[in-house]
């Protein structure tokens, strides 16, 4: 009897502990997310929302006025992601590998300094690089001149063919600290016995990294890849800051985030369209969900986790 009441009173605690988090999370995150998915299936006709099924998506993928922008943004976004995977993660791994070597002095200073760009906001990063790369100011040409490469200079952010890659590299510059830190942590958590055993077998230096450490940090690389994927397909701030909502020159730096912003809020003469905006958000949702599922079911389960 006593146990019964005790049990019941404990159940109330559970509800009290869970309630604030669940309420805020559900009301501000989950319901709007589904609300947005739902809005994508409606159109406004005479100030009323009318259910139109998948028509918005047909327009988005098929109607040239929309689909050109959409596929352009999707491809740009994919390229943005590819540059991150090819540059940010290898550089991050290299820096982490160097930092984690036990005899290295001043590791703490390097770590602190290299992480600084990551704590800065996109606004600072976007404008700072815009100024530095600006042909008006001439910091970049002066620097290139110092190493005898002045002829290579071009207004990279202003040229259609370079702008997107330049922005991707700026973003890499900003975020390289994250893979560096996570890999660094993973490398530090490898037990000394394993390293000593490898050394006894005569595996040292580069070979040790490739054959012993790299396989052990693969799960961390997997996590970093999926974090990069989600972050990149959700990107907006840097491009908005450096190139404006029109993602110039001539939409060459348009990604899904800026396309969503323009569609939702309107720009120049086009009015904002919440329904089409929702359709784009839904497409982004599906893309991100696919990426996360591929990671969870395709990659993570195959990577063996080592328990130390």
């Amino acid at each position: 009897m006593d146990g019964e009441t005790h049990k019941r009173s404990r159940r109330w605690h559970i509800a009290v502990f869970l309630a604030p988090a669940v309420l805020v999370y559900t009301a501000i995150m989950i319901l709007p997310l589904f609300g947005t998915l739902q809005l994508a299936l409606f159109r406004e006709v005479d100030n009323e929302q009318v259910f139109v099924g998948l028509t918005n998506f047909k327009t988005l993928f098929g109607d040239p006025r929309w689909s050109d922008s959409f596929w352009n943004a999707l491809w740009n976004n994919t390229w943005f992601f590819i540059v991150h995977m090819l540059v940010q993660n290898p550089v991050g791994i290299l820096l982490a590998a160097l930092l984690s070597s036990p005899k290295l002095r001043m590791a703490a200073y390097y770590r602190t300094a290299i992480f600084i760009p990551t704590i800065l906001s996109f606004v600072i990063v976007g404008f700072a690089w815009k100024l530095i790369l600006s042909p008006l100011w001439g910091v970049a040409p002066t620097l290139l001149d110092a190493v005898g490469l002045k002829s290579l200079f071009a207004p990279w952010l202003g040229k259609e063919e370079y702008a997107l890659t330049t922005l991707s590299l700026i973003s890499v510059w900003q975020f390289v600290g994250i893979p560096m830190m996570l890999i660094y942590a993973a490398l530090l958590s490898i037990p000394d016995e394993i390293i000593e055993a490898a050394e006894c077998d005569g595996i040292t230096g580069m070979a040790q990294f490739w054959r012993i450490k790299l396989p052990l940090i693969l799960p961390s690389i997997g996590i970093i890849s999926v974090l990069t994927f989600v972050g990149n397909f959700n990107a907006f701030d840097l491009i908005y800051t450096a190139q404006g909502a029109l993602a110039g020159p001539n939409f060459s730096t348009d990604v899904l985030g800026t396309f969503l912003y323009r569609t939702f809020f309107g720009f120049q003469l086009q009015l904002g369209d919440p329904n089409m905006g929702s359709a784009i958000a839904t497409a982004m949702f599906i893309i991100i969900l696919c990426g996360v599922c591929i990671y969870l079911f395709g990659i993570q389960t195959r990577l063996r986790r080592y328990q130390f």
Partner: protein
Amino acid sequence: MSTARHSAGRSIAAHAILITYTVIALFPVFVIVINSFKARKAIFRSPLELPNSETFSLVGYETALKQGDFLLYFQNSLIVTVVSLTLVLLFGAMAAFALSEYRFRGNSLMGLYLALGIMIPIRLGTVAILQLMVATGLVNTLTALILVYTAQGLPLAIFILSEFMRNISDDLKNAGRIDGLSEYRIFARLVLPLVRPAMATVAVFTMIPIWNDLWFPLILAPAEQTKTITLGSQVFIGQFVTNWNAVLAALSLAILPVLVLYLIFSRQLIRGITAGAVK
């Protein structure tokens, strides 16, 4: 002997790479800050030189402080970040305690539900969030931002904190129960102090994206009174784009507080990140 020379060469190479990258990481910040203290002519004539007695000038800062309400923006950012952070830590710890401490039906399902938000960005719900805020009259209030950031921060907070709380010994909590402590007291007096290191990790992960966010201030609270420092400097720089002194000064004003805080707390911050990653 040869291995010793070999390893010396290696360590020089390692330092060379790290120094190069450190220069790449710091150079833009350095250029912006030194030029913000120079007169207009010197900015263009010798952008890479430190300001000297001849070129030193604070005209950019004067314009920025006179034209932009940076103190207000800073205050708004501070309120939003501190309140959201407090709510995330409090609500997150409570939910994490419920999930890790009690067995009840739907426990793992609830955990999964709350973890969804780690991978799915809250931005995708923006259209409906804006409608919700318009309907409740919260547009252009700091409350709207606080609510959104609290929701955004909770999933990761709950995930990390419940992992930590599972490692707290049951004996301690049961001893508390025998002494007649209520569940609330066990949470507040016994569990919370023990997860303090994890709270620091969560605080770091939660704080930086909130402080730096541009999307939600732009959409939910673009009014002059509610601008955050990130949005405020974005708008200010957009307006003063040809006034290089003012732009450089505004950038430096946005960089310096964050930089100072980072340098003070970098040890905890980095320990927090690496601890969180190992977990």
